[in-house]
């Protein structure tokens, strides 16, 4: 597969860009943020995005979706990264749909996917229990009880957790924290007895929550796939989320970069346009180079998820690591080259910096993924 977008994909990008520019520019994000909306996104906007086919981009047509691939999902997220559009796209349309469409039973799919595609149902994955991403470290226990299971434990940094109707909870049914076997995925109603959510207001105003599970009872039908064998589904969901986050980082980093280039072409200091100073020119040329390289990793990871999902892991790790570091560099250079103005909330650079900081942390930061690749390579 050539590392370029097809004509159809280019059209989709143009259409997504047009839609988001009209319906969800950064002013929309500011409005949500400044109104202290507890949802942290607009349900109306999300329904309109669903009508555009965004919510159901990965949902098979049989379940009411448009049945496209990860490259298309990445295109939407890249554009949403440019406009900082708040939505449950990453949690629901990528992570949850991946887990459900590939690993859930027909009954589970029928129950959940159509609602997701319509933008009516929010589904969040509850995986991490510590401050750093460590999916094999799951300790939240699920013990057999009657026909079902009983869940006890805690989860944190659950994206869109405070808005979720349904949770996919990664629990330990066997083994010990640190082992990848013995993990089972459960569908849990966010309003079920024993589930307590505490919304956490994040740096980038992202919807997230911590959860406590105390004697939460679910029946056997809540299990996704096999008991003790949830790791593959979990990794698939996480990889979808990581590749989606990488695309979002390419979008946000690219937007910051382009705005910064435009700024140095206009801003004068010492009687010169600051873009004339070779010190800045070389840093921007370096950043452009890194951005292009990051972009290649992101597109490759998305293509791999479409073509060879089981071999995609290392490519996704590469993309998440590289886009996170480079978007971070872009946001830092953006603030620095704007000087004091870059430090103000009036300009958008601080908002991009915050969004990029959170997005790079989601489902493993650059250190996590770099370490992972080193281990895969045996050193």
């Amino acid at each position, binding site marked *: 597969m050539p590392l370029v977008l097809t004509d159809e994909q280019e059209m989709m990008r143009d259409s997504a860009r047009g839609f988001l520019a009209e319906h969800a520019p950064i002013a929309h994000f500011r409005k949500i943020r400044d109104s202290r909306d507890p949802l942290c996104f607009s349900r109306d906007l999300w329904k309109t995005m669903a009508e555009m086919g965004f919510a159901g981009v990965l949902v098979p047509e049989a379940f009411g979706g448009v049945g496209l691939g990860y490259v298309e999902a990445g295109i939407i997220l890249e554009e949403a990264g440019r406009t900082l559009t708040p939505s449950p796209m990453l949690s629901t349309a990528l992570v949850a749909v991946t887990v459900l469409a590939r690993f859930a039973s027909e009954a589970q799919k029928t129950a959940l996917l159509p609602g997701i595609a319509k933008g009516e149902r929010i589904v969040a994955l509850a995986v*991490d229990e*510590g*401050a*750093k*991403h*460590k999916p094999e470290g799951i300790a939240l226990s699920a013990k057999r009880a009657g026909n079902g299971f009983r869940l006890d434990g805690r989860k*944190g*940094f659950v994206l869109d957790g405070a808005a979720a109707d349904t949770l996919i909870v990664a629990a330990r049914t066997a083994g010990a924290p640190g082992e990848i076997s013995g993990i089972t995925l459960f569908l849990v109603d966010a309003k079920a007895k024993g589930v307590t959510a505490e919304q*956490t*207001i*994040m*740096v*980038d*105003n992202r919807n*997230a929550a911590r959860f406590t599970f105390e004697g939460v009872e679910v029946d056997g039908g809540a299990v996704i796939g096999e008991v003790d064998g949830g790791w593959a589904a979990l990794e698939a969901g996480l990889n979808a989320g990581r590749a989606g986050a990488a695309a979002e980082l390419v979008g946000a980093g690219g937007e910051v970069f382009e705005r910064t280039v435009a700024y140095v072409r206009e801003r*004068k*200091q*010492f*009687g010169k346009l600051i873009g004339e*100073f070779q*010190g*800045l020119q070389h840093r921007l040329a370096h950043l452009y180079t890194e951005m292009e390289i990051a972009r290649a990793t992101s597109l490759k990871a998305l293509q791999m998820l479409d073509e060879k999902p089981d071999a995609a892991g290392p490519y996704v790790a590469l993309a998440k690591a590289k886009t996170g570091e480079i978007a*971070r560099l872009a946001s*830092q250079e953006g*603030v*620095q080259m704007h*000087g*004091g*103005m*870059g*430090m*103000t*909330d*009036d300009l958008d*650079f*601080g*908002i991009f*910096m*915050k969004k990029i*900081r*959170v997005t790079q*942390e989601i489902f493993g*930061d*650059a*250190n*996590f993924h*770099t*370490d992972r690749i*080193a281990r895969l390579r045996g050193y």
Partner: protein
Amino acid sequence: MADLETFRAEAGAWLNANCPPEMRVPFDGEDAITWGGRNWVFRSEAEKVWLERMAAKGWTVPEWPREYGGASLSRDEAKVLREEMGKRKCRSPVESFGIWMLGPALLKYGSHEQKLEHLPKIARGEIRWCQGYSEPGAGSDLASLQTKAEDKGDHYLVNGQKIWTSYADKADWIFCLVRTNKDAPKHEGISFLLFDMASAGVTTAPITLISGASPFCQTFFSDVKVPKGNLVGQLDKGWDIAKYLLTHERDMIGGGSGGMFASRPLGQIAAQYAGQDGGVLEDGMLRAKIAQLELDAWAFSLAVDRGRDLAKAGQGLGAYSSVLKYYGAEVNKRALELVMDSMGSDALEWEGKRSKEGKTARDWLRTKANSIEGGTNEVQLNIIAKRILALPGA
């Protein structure tokens, strides 16, 4: 040396007798500092008494001459006083731009009358000063400032706009760079003016930063009348004073304390949040970055010491402060990036008690200004290239 030890004993005894116990607790943040000024509301009787006693002793500005509110202490005596205060955890009785910046400038460039008028009030914490330097079109290129002061016979008429004025909305007076000759080369038509922020025509508007804080203001001057006696130094020669103060400011931001860095060793933070395995951090990539940063920070602190020792030995370079300002800012920024990396999602919370209202994240964002305020990194590198390396066209 015997004299010094005598002084140490006397100072210690005085502090024991006069520093209220409430003032022997370390500050728990910038909010607990005593800034003083006309509108200052003391948060406790102890805070008020402590300032009064120290001011009466001349020890808020111990090295300034007695006649201007100080205690005429030698540098070594002042060091002993700081050491004795440190031992007892005595809080600083008052901090201000007046003490840090205007005072040293007036002592060097001001007239006797100006010193008599302003310095004692600074020493007693009665007047709070702010600094009017940057302008919207003149950030790094400070000398291209446009705020003008026209000679109207018995007064100057000031019009223009400043930006990044720290706490302008809380300050009583401003020391301000203004253009008094628009035909001269840009560095040669600037003057250094003092005036009351309560003067007619002065307004301020706070700027909200990305950290959510608003320590800076935009400040507007519209036909502000300033008495001619408020000019410091010579007309059109204010740039020399500005340069003197900028070097001073760089020292404060870049070197001196060694910067803010993280509140506790990074390795400890990372071990707590990201886990240890056999005595080393589980996350090998994070560990390598932390170790490199800690090495650089430690090496930097030695360079700060060396800069101080070189200056004492008369071998100091004027532009050495740029070296420290530049590197200190970078180290500080890297340190807070690594704190964020170490603390993961816990550091990403912006509100709520658990995160102390997002303290870590706000500290992180705050450091981004380190390489901008007091002269950007780019300006520091230009200074090094020009003044130390003597590169052509720098």
